[in-house]
């Protein structure tokens, strides 16, 4: 087990190293460095800026400095928001995104698991068909469609929910629905097929032959097995929630990390783009590693070592 954890963490580290290196070199592709997007700064200003950000040094030195700064957790300074540290921006924005995302993940997992199990247990019946239909649509409809449809009908037409900001619990409803819609559908499909698979397993027949009641068989024997693949989806789920938040926060004007990331892209605030990318990559990679390890821990079938 320890060997596996070490191996998994090593892969995570390598991935992080690659992502940060790629990020660093990609920034060189922006002609004249990250400042050209500004309306032609004078040569003097440019030189001053370059010196300030260490862009006049040779590339290997720059790379070394950059990696050293990363190790210290320093993601640099924003270009557009004068003098603000990227770290500072991330940590004021992150809690907002985390609250919406956390709720969305919770809703997606709870509803997805429930709906998928209900569908599997009623295979072929009307309720199964309804759930399958909805979840099939759910994975086909892009996030921005869900957002805009919600916003138009619940927000504008019926006028029952606020369409921007994040100041009361009501403000959470639409973003959370929009953000959880896809993963909920995905989980319910995953859960349904795993549940059907498990229900057909020999050990379910054994449980029945022991005289275990249907509910006990379901909750004890089936759910424990069927839910394992859902655990593996938690890593991708986090990644999805993060990217989904770009859209949701843009549409519902929520002052979260996604919103700041999108504006940094449109505003060509390269240090902020770079910093946010590396931070999010770190989050996703760490989460993936953690989920993988947790999965090995909860599934006794996997041989240890």
């Amino acid at each position, binding site marked *: 087990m320890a060997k596996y954890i070490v191996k998994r963490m090593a892969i995570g580290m390598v991935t992080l190293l690659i992502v940060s290196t790629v990020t660093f070199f990609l920034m060189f592709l922006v*002609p004249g460095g990250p400042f050209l997007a500004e309306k032609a700064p004078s040569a003097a200003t440019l030189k001053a800026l370059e010196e300030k950000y260490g862009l006049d040094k040779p590339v290997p030195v720059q790379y070394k400095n950059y990696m050293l700064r990363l190790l210290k957790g320093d993601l640099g300074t924003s270009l557009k928001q004068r003098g603000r540290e990227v770290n500072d921006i991330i940590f004021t924005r992150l809690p907002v995104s985390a609250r919406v995302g956390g709720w969305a993940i919770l809703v997606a997992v709870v509803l997805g698991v429930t709906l998928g199990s209900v569908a599997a247990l009623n295979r072929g019946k009307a309720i199964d068909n309804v759930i399958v239909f909805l979840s099939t649509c759910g994975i086909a409809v892009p996030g921005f469609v869900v957002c805009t449809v919600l916003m138009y009908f619940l927000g504008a037409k019926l006028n029952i929910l606020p369409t921007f900001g994040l100041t009361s619990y009501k403000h959470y409803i639409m973003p959370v629905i929009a953000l959880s819609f896809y993963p909920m559908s995905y989980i319910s499909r995953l859960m349904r097929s795993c549940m059907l698979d498990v229900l057909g397993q020999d050990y379910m027949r054994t449980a029945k032959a022991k005289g275990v009641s249907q509910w006990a068989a379901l909750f004890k024997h089936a759910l424990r097995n069927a839910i394992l693949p859902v655990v593996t989806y938690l890593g991708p789920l986090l990644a999805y929630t993060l990217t989904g938040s770009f859209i949701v926060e843009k549409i519902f004007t929520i002052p979260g990390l996604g919103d700041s990331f999108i504006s940094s892209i449109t505003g060509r605030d390269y240090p902020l783009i770079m910093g946010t990318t590396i931070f999010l990559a770190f989050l*996703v990679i760490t989460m993936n590693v953690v989920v993988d390890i947790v999965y090995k821990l909860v599934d006794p079938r996997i041989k240890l070592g």
Partner: protein
Amino acid sequence: MSQKQPFAIKVGPDKEIPLNFHLNPEDFEPASDSEKEELVTMRESVSFWSDGIRRFRKNKLAMASLVVVIFMMFFSFVLPRFYPYHYAQQIRGSEGLAPFEYSETELAAKEAGEKVFPHVLGTDTLGRDIMARIMMGSSVSILVGLVASAIILIIGSTFGAIAGYFGGWVDIIMMRIVDIIYTVPDFLIIILLSVTLKHPLMALAEKPGFGWINRVGVGLISIFIVFSLLYWVGMARIVRGQVLALKEQEYIAAARALGASHSRIIRKHLLTNCIGTLIVTTTLQIPSSIFTESFLSFLGLGVSAPMPSLGSLAATALDGIYTYPYRLFAPAVTISIIILAFNLLGDGLRDAFDPKLKS
């Protein structure tokens, strides 16, 4: 057929037949082989393909989705040729028309007896016909899906087949690469690439021979680059798993014994035998690529103006959501239908052709 009967026929205690029906002595004469054979109703044996196609045809949902996919192809690639408005054509005086509304000049033309094709979905603020733009947008989306899936299919299946076939340390190293790429957060890299590749690609497009870059669009090219760098790993894993199982089969050993080369065995024997899986995985990759493209275009990172994509059309229409909701919903519904149809088609193909799920 006839064998020596080793057991004597021993009749039990003389008992009358306890049934009422009449029995003729002739009934107890031996039956001929042909009489016996008539009795055996063998079901027709069917090949993998015809069996799969039969099952696919029986699946109503899959057939319906196939019809929708074909219709969407027609709508995106054929219809624009006959549609009187071009997607980039700005009609002066016809800005911001509602569906089926005519501008003054068009009305005048109609008065004069000319035939004027209606703007089915109206025009945008620049006087471009929205219907034409949606057709173009969906053709861009579908093309992205097809091209990206083709890239993924080629890279993923080759990589996976090689890793699975050679095994050993080749497999270990190759799969470690897959593991690493698998952990990379793809959306972030796509965004990063779209942002940073823009200028170099535009510069490259200026050079002779690279003019096509502008036609395809910088955003699209960066999407393709990312697909070919990152998205093939899922396919590679699936193919490797299949190849690992297949290469233990006798006919592979036979082929090797007959002196077939590695590449021939991989191409001829291994890949053709996982063709069902390849088709299914590729089909399911199409909607997911379309999904990604629409996401990026919605954020303004996909195709570049004036070329529309369904995502960018929706993004532009977002500002006017309360006044012109149909401008937003038309592309939104179109993209949802396309993705849904491809998803259902892929599901149907999987049910029909993936032998693992064969019941």
